[in-house]
């Protein structure tokens, strides 16, 4: 039997989506941090260096770096390499706009740290202001 955990938060972009989690414990850079043509993290010092987020629910603590963040994630949508949802530890202008222009369900301000509760490979359902996590 699978363990299921429910988290409550605040809707960033409304919608419902289920998929596999890809968890970053470090903040993510957009410009200079991802290659939008391939949907891959390219920052050499990053824990997810070389990992593809296409089709995953991207779980990350915050956005860092350049103001190109949202534009790069918008480009993943236009290139067909986008994540299918975002679970954001702490919202900022970069990640809020990034989620809006990626046009995927997104949530923040959860009642537990999503980067601790969720592990890469867990099955995650984002439903507006709740997240259901099924451990792998």
């Amino acid at each position, binding site marked *: 039997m699978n363990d299921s955990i429910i988290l409550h938060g605040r809707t960033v972009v409304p919608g419902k989506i289920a998929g596999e989690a890809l968890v970053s414990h470090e903040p993510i850079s957009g410009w200079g941090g991802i290659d939008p043509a391939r949907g891959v993290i390219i920052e050499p010092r990053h824990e997810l260096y070389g990992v593809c987020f296409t089709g995953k629910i991207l779980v990350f603590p915050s956005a860092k770096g350049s103001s190109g963040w949202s534009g790069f994630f918008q480009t993943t949508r236009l290139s067909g390499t986008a994540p299918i949802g975002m679970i954001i530890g702490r919202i*900022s202008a970069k990640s809020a706009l990034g989620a809006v222009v990626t046009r995927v369900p997104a949530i923040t301000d959860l009642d537990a740290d999503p980067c601790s509760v969720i592990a890469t490979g867990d099955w995650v359902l984002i439903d507006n202001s709740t997240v259901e996590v099924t451990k792998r």
Partner: protein
Amino acid sequence: MFLTDDEKRMRDGAEGDAVAAAMDLLLRYGAALDADRLCSIRNVAGTMTQPSPVKARLVAEGGWDKAFAVINLDSDLDLTIPPMRIPTCQLQHGFGPDSVDIVPYPRANVDLQSDGEAFYGAHGVQILATCTPYQVGNLPMRGEHCAWMESSAVIYANSVLGARTNCEGIASTGAASLTGRIPCWGNHLEENRFGTHLISVSGVSVESFQDWGMLGYFAGSVSGEDRPVITGSLARPDLTELKHFGAAAATSGGVELYHIPGITPEAASVEAAFQSQVPDAAVYGPAERAAVYETLNEIGSSTDVDFVLLGCPHASLEQIRQAAALLDGKRLSSGTELWIMAPRALKVMADRSGYTAVIERAGGRVLADSCPAMSRAAPAGTRVFATDSAKQAHYLPAILGIEAWFGTLEECIAAAVTGRWAGGLR
């Protein structure tokens, strides 16, 4: 979100479909932020002309109106873009026509960008073409609400000028340029402008351009997206040093606002920089300084330097003069190129002051509009580069897959002349 009557009219299409689409984006964005309302602005720094494969495709399909709709308004509607409602400038973008035959950058991008400049210029956009609009006449006033992109410009505007802007993006600045509005959230609100972390410089003295950059890199790694307050043994910084400090803090973390009590305008004292209790200080001393230096140099292994890059963020006129003074009468190593990136307006002054001629006689270049990171362009065959910019040392290895050395201006010029990196922390 509360909307004024004017904002409701814009949302409902009274000023046309493009303005309505801009309001729609601002409402989606405001909801994502949980903002209470919008604020009125009349200073936008964004990007419209920068070439990209997606933009080239959109322009080919539906002209610049379509590119602006999709990229700058996040709209799928067929829109005709009206003139900018408020003063709007173009930040750094790709390389221009005068870079052809110098920079290996696609001619199609140069042409696309020139075409874009004509379209946006006719729509009222000021083509400043620099990451440092504050060096070429766009100096917002203290307390002025703005919508700026470019993390190094945002941190400068907030911290050094006391203006108020979040680190906006392409779509939010596009929407702001047609509406004169941006979500009133984050750095726009007084209560979010106090310090959160205290950094005390002790046992080292931060005086040089290099040291200000390393301290900024440390401040960003300590405070993440929060607001550091810097105190201790600091010399009084100038524009170029705070330009370097801020760019580094915005790179290693996500700092958009800092205070240096007694120097930056919103904090007369350490106590005034914090809304309540002053937190315990994180010390920046010899060990921390050495650790930052090691981090910025950990990508370098070969000491054969084939590219030296200066001017990130874009150089001041004084930085160009200093480089010219060090290069006077010298000649670059045959296998090494030197580029100094600068705002076009300052390049004109460097030309007129004779600095550019000195640099070119040595074999170097002063280039405008862009940078290797923005345009993913370096001299052909570059494997190892050296820079005096903590930001560029951080980003360029990832973007171009090359090795990096970070050092002083003098070490970088020496590397350009000898073709060898001989830098070290002093």
